[in-house]
């Protein structure tokens, strides 16, 4: 391969490192620090049943903020994810509300049977919050949880939430604690983008919300892809394409009524965009729903390919795999011409 041509623009050179922890915030984007940790601390002041637990990833899941505020309500379980979730089940059985954190890859792949049997089957009130969901690390497949939604969707009793930004995380945390039963939440940590406050948005468990209407295209998205879909919709205005965005943060249970109503609007291209493999995530959930209910809009799925993804810098990878704002915009233009 030829070396890349030297950059001629004067902006800060784009990062090209495959670091484990990388920011998903765009340059100059508004952010908020550790919304999960700070919200949890506020909530725990009111609710004495809340406990924090982690498997050697307190600092990297923003749970260290809870640990500092409530050191006697925090359990370090060591780098032992099976123990983490089994013990969380035991604490829940004794009436507590454990919030158990690790990386999404370890909860979904390494501890799946423990979550399935000791938490989901026993219907224990454990909240699982996992960092590095989908492609939010450039470290390689060991830390890229590209299939977590598919795995947890398939688990009975499990509620699955994929929040978009800091504004939403602040509302998801109290909502999932109010819900009695197991919840899996994709966690954005560190400096988390702040987007949805501009849309007067409020999170409701199990509800999809139309953030922006559009005549020609409807993006259906969750997690950080809602942020990308909103940016793409703005950019598409200059291409004279009118695109709307339906945000679906609760992957399970799916808000079938809202999705069907939005997709039944005639003549609109539906594009499901997700930070997840195209297998078994939001795209296939929506496709299955539309097929079962006889609603047949023109339909495309944007998601990660069914392959082990490369290591590299996130912006590079998001472009390569088609989930950056620019890639999203280009694909929609291609489908419409």
């Amino acid at each position, binding site marked *: 391969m030829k070396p890349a041509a030297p950059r001629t623009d004067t902006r800060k050179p784009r990062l090209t490192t495959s670091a484990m922890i990388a920011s998903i915030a765009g340059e100059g984007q508004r952010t908020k620090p550790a919304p999960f940790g700070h919200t949890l601390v506020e909530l725990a002041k009111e609710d004495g049943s809340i406990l924090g637990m982690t498997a050697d990833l307190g600092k990297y899941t923003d749970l260290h903020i809870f640990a500092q505020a409530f050191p006697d309500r925090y*359990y370090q*379980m*060591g780098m*032992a994810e*099976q*123990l983490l*979730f*089994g*013990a*969380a*089940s*035991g*604490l*829940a*059985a*004794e*009436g*507590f509300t*454990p919030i158990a954190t690790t990386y999404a890859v370890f909860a979904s792949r390494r501890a799946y*049977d*423990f979550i399935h*049997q*000791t938490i989901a*089957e*026993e*219907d224990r009130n454990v909240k699982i919050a996992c960092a590095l969901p989908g492609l939010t690390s450039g470290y390689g497949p060991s830390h890229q949880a590209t299939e977590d939604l598919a795995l947890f969707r398939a688990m009975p009793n499990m509620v699955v939430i994929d929040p978009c930004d800091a504004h939403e995380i602040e509302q998801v945390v109290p909502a999932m604690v109010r819900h009695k039963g197991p919840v899996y939440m994709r966690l954005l940590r560190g400096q988390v983008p702040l987007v949805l406050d501009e849309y007067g948005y409020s999170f409701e468990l199990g509800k999809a919300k139309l953030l922006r209407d559009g005549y020609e295209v409807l993006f259906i998205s969750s997690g950080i892809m809602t942020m990308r879909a909103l940016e793409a919709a703005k950019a598409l205005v200059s291409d004279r394409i009118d695109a709307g965005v339906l945000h679906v943060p609760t992957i399970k249970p799916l808000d079938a009524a809202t999705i069907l109503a939005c997709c039944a609007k005639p003549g609109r291209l539906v594009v499901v965009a997700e930070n997840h493999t195209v297998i078994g995530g939001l795209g296939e959930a929506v496709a299955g729903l539309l097929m079962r209910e006889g609603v047949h809009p023109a339909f495309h799925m944007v998601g990660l390919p069914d392959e082990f993804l490369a290591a590299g810098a996130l912006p590079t990878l998001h472009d390569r795999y088609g989930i950056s704002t620019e890639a999203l915009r280009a694909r929609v233009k291609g489908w419409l011409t």
Partner: protein
Amino acid sequence: MRTAPLGHNVSLERRAWNIRRHAILMGEVQGQGYIAQALDVADILATAYFHAMRYRPDDPAWEGRDRFLLSNGHYAIALYAALIEAGIIPEEELETYGSDESRLPMSGMASYTPGMEMSGGSLGLGLSIAVGKCLGLKRKGSDSRVYTLFSDGELDEGSVWEAIMSAAHYKLDNLIAIVDVNNQQADGPSTTVMGFEPLTEKLESFGWFVQRIDGNDLAAVRAAFDAAKAQHGQGKPSMIIADTLMGKGVPFLEAREKNHFIRVEAHEWRLALDALDERKPS
């Protein structure tokens, strides 16, 4: 504190015998079951439910109870027998064992059965749940204990050692674990499937209070439970390594070539019951 539904003056020997009998009757219902394991742990369960533990038969979820976690879910037939003997499950339900709509499925699950604290089946789960329960009980200031029974085959599971490390780390002296060493697992003798000896030394080096006993010697089992209970406040979790004999109490099953899932012919259930009846304690 606990009250025996059939009177206070029933001997432990008789409790263990009754548990074996309930288990054989359930085995006969389905014509199959992990009967050899049920017979080998009957003495341990009799001691747990009629000597060591605190519970209320008419209120299995009573907050002040001691918790019993059956990690080896395939031993459910044995625990159901103990729960029947303890008056937590009505004896009539024995006939439903393993049938459609029964509260007594072949593999033990918390969601099905009163008195069943966890869902087993997948092995190596119990000790991790026990760690969480012990932490929770300590948080609540409860003096209840957590008992968990698991099998020697489960020692192969890495999660068991994760839990063993953490129980010592958190000084869970309200935890009493019992490992049933019958030296049989699915693929053969446990010691040849994956060697786990010297087990006492291993567990002691992990920071546990360890006792190794003949798990079919009731006096020894009782003394071990007493010593483990006396550890409360001493800062160490307790492990009772119980060497047991598969099929204990029914000589022709004891002598049968050892198997994880022994074959019992239809007519043999009655023979097993007869053999047991001949050894009925007073």
